[in-house]
């Protein structure tokens, strides 16, 4: 077959200037003005806060590592971790129950989420703390029959148990919804494939579904954990000595209300900042299977060059 001659390239004198590799960016005037305005207002506000004697910064420094404060901080941390763990562990079966075909499992899970998500956490904490008013005795018994073991509610419900039960059961309701969303985000074909290869439902869940759901579950769970750190401050109403309760106990004595609240605020900010940082790392881990676009495009390019060479 005869090939037609290629048309000659038409050059123009400006061509050497048109190479985009040598292009300049225009000065972003409006952006610079905005930066200057924000920095001016921001630094002025920062200076005002820093020099405002009412904040009592020296007092903040004095109490930042105070023993009572650190003890409160410790209580806040372990209370949040324990409640969160229980919340996640309870949330998973509730999430699965809500997705189940079995009306009993679905009904129970729905009722759980309905009650614990539908009422204020503060009220739940107070009810748990005052459980002995409702049920003086707590017993393990055969329905409508005799009881096997029996406890005194007053002895069983301390501020600690009330705080853990209250926070964890409430958290479970929210985690159930987050986990359910994650499980739903995994394509149906993955479950089918796992089953087609002879995996039992539990194994399919642990090996195939949950690892993929984690990508969707982690970001809102980090959010929940940060919420939980702050929600622990509610337990100060049931005389649990958390971070907020500790600074309150100090300022009730010294009347340095704002400086001590600032101590608590700075600690809360510090913890939540560390958590956000950790969260971003966990997220990166769970998206390992799909953040491969760079690698993929290079291998595609390599393939095209190979084919071109042929």
């Amino acid at each position: 077959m005869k090939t037609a001659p290629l048309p000659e390239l038409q050059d123009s004198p400006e061509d050497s200037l048109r190479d985009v590799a040598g292009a300049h960016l225009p000065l972003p005037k409006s952006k610079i003005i905005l930066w200057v305005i924000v920095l001016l207002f921001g630094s002025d506000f920062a200076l005002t806060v820093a020099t405002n004697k009412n904040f009592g910064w020296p007092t903040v420094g004095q109490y930042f590592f105070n023993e009572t404060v650190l003890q409160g901080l410790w209580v806040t941390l372990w209370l949040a971790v324990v409640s969160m763990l229980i919340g996640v562990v309870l949330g998973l079966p509730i999430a699965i129950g809500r997705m189940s075909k079995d009306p009993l499992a679905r009904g129970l899970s729905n009722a759980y989420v309905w009650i614990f998500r539908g009422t204020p956490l503060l009220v739940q904490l107070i009810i748990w703390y005052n459980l002995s008013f409702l049920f003086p005795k707590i017993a393990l018994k055969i329905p409508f029959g005799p009881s096997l073991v029996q406890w005194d509610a007053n002895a069983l419900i301390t501020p600690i148990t009330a705080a853990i039960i209250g926070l964890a059961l409430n958290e479970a309701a929210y985690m159930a919804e987050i986990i359910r969303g994650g499980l739903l985000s995994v394509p149906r074909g993955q479950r089918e494939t796992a089953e087609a290869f002879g995996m039992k439902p539990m194994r399919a869940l642990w090996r195939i579904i949950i690892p993929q759901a984690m990508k969707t579950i982690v970001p809102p769970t980090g959010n929940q954990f940060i919420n939980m750190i702050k929600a622990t401050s509610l337990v100060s109403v049931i005389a649990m000595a958390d971070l907020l309760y500790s600074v309150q106990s100090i300022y009730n004595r010294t009347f340095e209300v704002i400086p001590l609240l600032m101590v608590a605020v700075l600690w809360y900010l510090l913890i939540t900042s560390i958590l956000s940082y950790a969260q971003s790392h966990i997220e990166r881990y769970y998206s390992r299977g799909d953040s491969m676009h760079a690698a993929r495009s290079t291998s595609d390019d390599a393939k095209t060059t190979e084919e071109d060479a042929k």
Partner: protein
Amino acid sequence: MTSPILRARNLHKSFGNNEVLKGIDLDVAPSEVVAILGPSGSGKSTFLRCINRLEHIDKGFIEVDGEQIGYQLKNGKLVALPNAAIARQRGKMGMVFQSFNLFPHMTVLQNVIEAPVGVHRVNKAEAIETARELIAKVGLSEKLNAYPGQLSGGQQQRVAIARALAIKPKILLFDEPTSALDPELVGEVLATMRDLASQGLTMIVVTHEIGFAREAADRVVFMDGGYVIEQGKPEDVLVKPQHARTQAFLSRFI
């Protein structure tokens, strides 16, 4: 004649009011390669999914390797099997899906050893060795530690085939294995399947690839409207189809 490895009798399956299978009877002999052809909506994929109980049949029965799928005869009464027993039955069948369905959070090697190690309790070192051989067989040795997202569609489907082979299945089920692939990638997957067909594996292949059916299948089954309309040797069914609907279907490929 050897006893069939798959026996399906009078299969009926409805989705709501839509009856998709209206009485399918089919035997497949060991080492036989059966290609199921038919227009979309003819029920061929549903039939395949019924074999490993991804869909539950409403009537009739399926027997694989002498065992009824999903049920058991106990003192003359038919009783549904528990999940664990069904999982064990499924372990005898390897399946290759239209959309590959590799596990995206696992590497190629992990995908292939997952079922042998986790379901069939094969020793891990042994499973890895078998997996390496199978992955080499489908020509992807250099992709052992790649994630599915890094592979082309054709490569993913070849990994899926290796994964299905890794459980040493009695039957391999292919559900339109090339339908989701770009035209230039279909060839590599069909070549792999042709290779398997020549090695004496029992294969049931739902496909639109008439060429594959002609060259690699021992038998072609043509389905339409929930029935098996016509079946026989590829050279008979594909070259001189008896039924008007088979003729109409095939005429579009010539």
